């Protein structure tokens, strides 16, 4: 899979938040085989090079993530305005030394749905400034077109509200996106709860899945990370293999020809 000028094998992008401990996070990253992990920026609380006292923030946290060898995708989570998102992206580029940015401009505090108007504006500003933008968007096709016009080469439609684990609330919308943007990498971001949700996204032809809470809040995060990786690989193979058409009625699979008359 090609994302801007980077090629990756894994189609799972993994978030680094909400794990019970930094060790469990590292186990989950390893088990997932992910090549891209998402991170954020928050106010510095501790001073000194050791970073946060819990190992979940600061320079120590950053060092441990770098050690995984994964590509770093910083986000602008929590930003509600274009200015906030742009400034956060610029800060992230310096700290994480990458031009990738997972652009979130949140439009509603309850649903955490994207403010697509601000998103398009911010995507344009950042793309012109040399960023490679991964926009967290809805399945709206016109918004997707505007994002591509703004310079995005990847689209990340939501599956369901962030952290809800509801699975894909609008599979038809994602299917329409696939048909409308056949050559643009599409990554379902947010809403995945179970491996079957991730497999469904891949069967719809999505290029990848970005998830966090589904793994971090599982009873066994490392096992769930592995399960997600398997589901994504299976779903992808299922899409590429071109599934049979659904039928309304039964059709015998065992040949009728040569059937004995025993009645």
């Amino acid at each position, binding site marked *: 899979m090609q994302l801007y000028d980077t090629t990756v094998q894994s189609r799972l992008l993994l*978030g680094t938040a909400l794990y019970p401990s930094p060790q469990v996070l590292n186990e989950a990253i390893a088990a997932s085989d992910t090549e891209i992990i998402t991170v*954020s*920026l928050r106010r510095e609380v501790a001073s000194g090079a050791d970073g946060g006292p819990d190992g979940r*923030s600061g320079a120590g946290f950053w060092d441990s993530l770098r050690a995984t060898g994964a590509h770093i995708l910083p986000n602008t989570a929590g930003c509600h305005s274009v200015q906030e998102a742009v400034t*956060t992206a610029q*800060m992230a580029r310096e700290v994480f030394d990458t031009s990738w940015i997972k652009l979130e401009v949140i439009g509603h505090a309850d649903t955490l749905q994207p403010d697509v108007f601000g998103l398009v504006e911010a995507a344009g500003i950042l793309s012109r400034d040399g960023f490679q933008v991964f926009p967290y968007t809805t399945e709206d096709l016109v918004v997707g077109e505007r994002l591509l016009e703004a310079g995005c080469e990847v689209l990340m439609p939501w599956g369901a509200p962030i952290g809800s684990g509801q699975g894909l609330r609008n599979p038809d919308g994602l299917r329409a996106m696939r048909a409308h943007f056949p050559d643009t990498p599409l990554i379902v971001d947010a809403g995945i709860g179970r491996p079957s949700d991730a497999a469904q996204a891949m069967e719809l032809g999505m290029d990848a899945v970005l998830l*966090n809470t589904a793994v971090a809040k599982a009873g066994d995060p490392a096992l769930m990370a592995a399960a997600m990786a398997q589901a994504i690989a299976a779903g992808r193979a299922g899409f590429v293999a071109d599934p049979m058409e659904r039928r309304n009625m039964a059709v015998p699979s065992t040949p009728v020809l040569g059937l004995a008359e025993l009645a």
Partner: protein
Amino acid sequence: MKILVNATARDIQSGTLDKALAELGMTSPALATALNGIFVSRAKRADTQLSEGDRLEVLSPMQGG
């Protein structure tokens, strides 16, 4: 002078951003700064003058989804 550092009022002596960070003990290499909502790169900290009432944000890496 009094400035807001990550929304907390602080009284600092330093006139420039790079010295203020040192004074505040914010010496980690993994920090990014914004003054009054505008990003200030590492390279520009020494030339960035602080003023009374400035809002300084100092951010560091954190878990994220």
